[in-house]
């Protein structure tokens, strides 16, 4: 095949050997193919060289929403895998029955804060547009115990106190009218001396000053956020594992086809 303009220096030696051997045998000149292992090695090396330059900043656009309960409010953030905030994403808060409680458009920080009105599971649905969506459920057990019980399904809580508010510094989606004073038999008095009293059977209430409880909650929330980010980040192991699976799947495919072809040839 001459005049194609596609012959590279790498193929010259193989082509020459093919020409010489073919010419000696008196058969038409045919261009021999380089070994399969060489082709595979070259391809793998080239693509990995290019890909490896970018894996350091790899982070696909998987949308992640995460929230914790802090200071009796549901606070969280919406971000892409890799850590960048989901700017202008829409966050919808739904109750346990799927009714929409509030909707807010997040700001550049992707953070939000929502004041729950009842002690029920809240489902947070984040929509970053173009088919990118994620959901997170805040279980009722994480909400303050002094919140009223959830309304029945026949009277959905459609309190849109936050309405379609555009986010401020924290993307508030509800008003802040809630009382910090509550009467509960197992909760300590604020400003106390930190004495710990035995809780009732089956309960694990620890009486601490209110300030220490809030500090602990903040530290736990920060740890949970860091843990969530660590769990959802893209890692080298995931990419290598995926490539390994790909090569293995195609290897099994080749093996199966070869065995089928050999079985068909032996029966003839």
């Amino acid at each position: 095949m001459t005049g194609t303009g596609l012959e590279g220096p790498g193929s010259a030696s193989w082509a020459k050997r093919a020409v010489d051997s073919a010419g000696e045998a008196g058969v038409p000149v045919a261009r021999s193919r380089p070994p399969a292992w060489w082709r595979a090695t070259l391809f793998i090396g080239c693509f990995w060289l290019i890909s490896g330059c970018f894996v350091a900043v790899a982070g696909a656009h998987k949308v992640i929403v995460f929230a914790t309960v802090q200071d009796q409010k549901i606070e969280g953030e919406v971000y892409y895998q890799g850590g960048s905030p989901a700017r202008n994403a829409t966050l919808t808060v739904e109750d346990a029955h799927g009714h929409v409680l509030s909707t807010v458009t997040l700001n550049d920080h992707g953070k939000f804060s929502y004041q729950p009105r009842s002690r029920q599971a809240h489902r947070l649905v984040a929509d970053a547009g173009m088919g990118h969506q994620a959901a997170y459920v805040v279980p009722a057990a994480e909400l303050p115990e002094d919140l009223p019980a959830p309304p029945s399904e026949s009277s959905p809580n459609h309190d849109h106190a936050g309405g379609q508010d555009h986010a401020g510094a924290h993307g508030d989606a509800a008003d802040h009218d809630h009382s910090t004073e509550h009467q509960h038999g197992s909760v300590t008095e604020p400003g106390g001396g930190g004495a710990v009293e035995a809780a009732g059977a089956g309960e694990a209430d620890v009486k601490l000053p209110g300030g220490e409880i809030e500090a602990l909650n903040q530290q736990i929330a920060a740890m949970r956020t860091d843990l969530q980010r660590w769990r959802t980040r893209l890692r080298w192991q995931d990419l290598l594992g995926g490539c390994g699976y790909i090569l293995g799947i195609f290897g099994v495919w080749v093996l199966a086809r070869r065995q089928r072809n050999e079985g068909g040839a032996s029966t003839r």
Partner: protein
Amino acid sequence: MHLHEAVLAGSPAGIGVLCAGAVGTAVGTAIGLRKMDNEHVPCVAVVTSAFFVISSIHVPAGVTSVHLVLTGLVGLLLGWTAFPALLIALMLQALLLGHGGVLALGINTLVMATPAVVCHHVFRRSVCCGHDKVAGLAGVVGGATGVLGAAFLMATALWLSGEAFTVPAVAILVSHLGVALVEGLVTGGAVVFLRRVRPDVLERPFLFAALSTEC
């Protein structure tokens, strides 16, 4: 460019889109598997691995983010075999990385593999011709076409599932213009590189019985 199953599964129209995508992908995959012989499998495997890794590259684009897909290059190299290759890559992304979802696997594969096959039919002859500049330019245009075609199909899928079309489609296409430019350059560079180092890869006839290297 992954459509999440939660976006489409919320309405009957979206479920229809998911089913149509699954059927289309099944047909394309069957055609691709018939055209894939044992000698070609290592190349398909490596290209699939490259797509799996490179589609994880995050490129911020305004209020959202986009990623490289290399559908144009995949189509130029694999042709109809792009369907099973992208199906496997997207399946592993859904299972290992949580991108897109298993239910949306069919529509995601159809969205990305269809432009790849189109690029193969349209630009393959130009890529294999005897002029490096023409082949490089064809690679650039093919790479950009692959991305924009996939973006258009994604907007169409969202429209068929009940969302508005005009504004999201424009937003999707505009946000992918930068990616299309980058992918075009990458594809053009890859085509020129392969012509000089591994010309037999581009010469391999995947669709036509005897693909001539003459333009």
